């Protein structure tokens, strides 16, 4: 690994002074750690170490609080109330209608995150629906084009009006898959469909 440093002071000037002065500087440097620090450092690294940074999403719950939330730009209806995101989430909104509650969340992951079928079955499991085979995917999904992106919309409805249901918009953008997920009782998720579509139309990803 190639390394070199740019120093803030010229070491050779100091070397030309009297030895006692040099000794004094050396002693003080040892005691205080105030030796000349490089302003910058240059090195070469191998390209082969491109990393899986999934820990950042887990870490982000602790690290970033709400500071990077606004990096995802979109418009939300005024009755959606933003709350602190949990693990793996970038933004979260609560939607209340009477005693019913729904949640809208945004998350992003590197790659294709296991593929469409795995994600659909994971969401189905979350609302107590059985998994589906690959040939049934089209029954629950459709493509939706906006001015900027093409989304894959996934709609999973529960059997009853108040059964848990999920509506997801997925979009692949620069090696990342973004998920916009609305989850709650079926009647509330259906009522918020227009707001959901308006939101993804206004979306601006980094």
């Amino acid at each position: 690994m190639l390394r070199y440093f740019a120093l803030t002071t010229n070491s050779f000037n100091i070397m030309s002074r009297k030895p006692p002065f040099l000794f004094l500087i050396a002693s003080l440097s040892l005691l205080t750690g105030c030796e000349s620090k490089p302003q910058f450092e240059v090195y070469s690294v191998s390209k082969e170490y491109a990393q899986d940074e999934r820990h950042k999403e887990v870490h982000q719950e602790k690290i970033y609080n709400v500071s990077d939330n606004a990096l995802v730009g979109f418009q939300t209806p005024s009755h959606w109330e933003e709350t602190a995101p949990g693990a793996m989430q970038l933004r979260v909104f609560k939607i209340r209608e009477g005693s019913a509650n729904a949640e809208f969340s945004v998350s992003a992951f590197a790659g294709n995150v296991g593929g469409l079928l795995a994600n659909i079955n994971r969401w189905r499991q979350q609302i107590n629906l059985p998994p589906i085979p690959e040939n049934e995917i089209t029954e629950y999904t459709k493509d939706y084009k906006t001015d900027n992106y093409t989304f894959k919309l996934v709609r999973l409805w529960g059997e009853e009006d108040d059964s848990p249901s999920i509506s997801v918009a997925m979009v692949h953008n620069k090696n990342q898959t973004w998920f916009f997920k609305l989850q709650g009782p079926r009647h509330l998720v259906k009522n918020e469909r227009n707001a959901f579509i308006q939101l993804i139309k206004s979306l601006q990803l980094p």
Partner: protein
Amino acid sequence: MRLLSFLSSIRLTLALLSLSMILVFFGTLDQVDWGIHEVQERYFQSWIALWRYPHYLPYGITLRKIPLIIPGGYTLGLLLLLNLICAHIKHFKWGLPRLGINILHLGLILLIISGFSTSLFQEESQMWLTLNKDKNYSENFLQNELAITKLGEDSTDIVTVIPFKNLTGSRDLNLDHIGISIETLEKCENATIGTLKSENQDNKDLLPKATQGVGKRMNLVIQEKPKTYKEDEINTATALIKLKNHEGDIGSWIVSNVLDERFPPQQFKNNGNAHTLALRFKRTYFPFSLQLVHFKKEFYPGTETPKSFESRVQITENGSRRLFTISMNQPLRYKGYTFYQASYSNDDEQSMLQVVKNPGWPLPYLSVGMVTLGLIGHFCIRISKMSTKGKR
């Protein structure tokens, strides 16, 4: 001679030890507000520490204007070292009866020196490892650096890293080897980054200022906020920087540690070469790589409290591979680095190691060994003397 008497006196020892207790007491009080790392710097890695009366207690606003000045860890350590050396010089005697005491004192002197050595030279960082993936660097989540990577056509990239603290508005930083200079327009230790809001369109301070990259694309605005010292939070270090080459301005970018690998890299071109620009956690690269081969954890029966967890790692260096196990109390020492098992996540697919580089790591062991040896030696000599006297 009077100075030697003063420096070698037991009164000075007692005074310094009392001040050390006071320092620890007030440092512990401030740890509530400042967190362990900040207190370590302000109290124990400084010459003078200032304690201020808490503002939330009665008369807090008035009383906190007058700080309590306490000698810092460096001052006390240095004076204790001088005290011990002077006492040794003044009272030193050769001979078997004093052998134990002399070894003990030398051990204590070495212990204080090792404290200075650790404080000055120890580097700590964290390393997240993913199952079956190689990694050759660790990150320090408390420090940030601006990294400008010149993307090479072959298998390597040239990276220029500038510590975040060196980004100052006072003067441009010249990077002659890649033909650019950096002007820091704004710098925040902690910030909120948001898109421009309609109600702020008339506020000049809250208008987007970046002319390139994600800042321009998303109309991002930086708002400074107070630095956090909480153990479970990390400051969003952010800066607005302007890059220039010999022809003039290239543009200005928002860089922030929040714009990490989850976001597409910010790029620019200079002299036909592609570069990326990122503010990231400070990295330490190793001359070898680690790969997580297996991760195992055990819980106490019926609970979710971890009993033990361990990582099986493979180290690859110059083509040769070796396997090691790192568990909670069994770190791996390799090429001057010590890797401790620290955490895990993502269904056992990722493991975090705490990485410590301390060139003086044998010193505390050596000094404690000497102190033990000195105490045992002194004890044996005294017993032997007493038994000889008893026989007489």
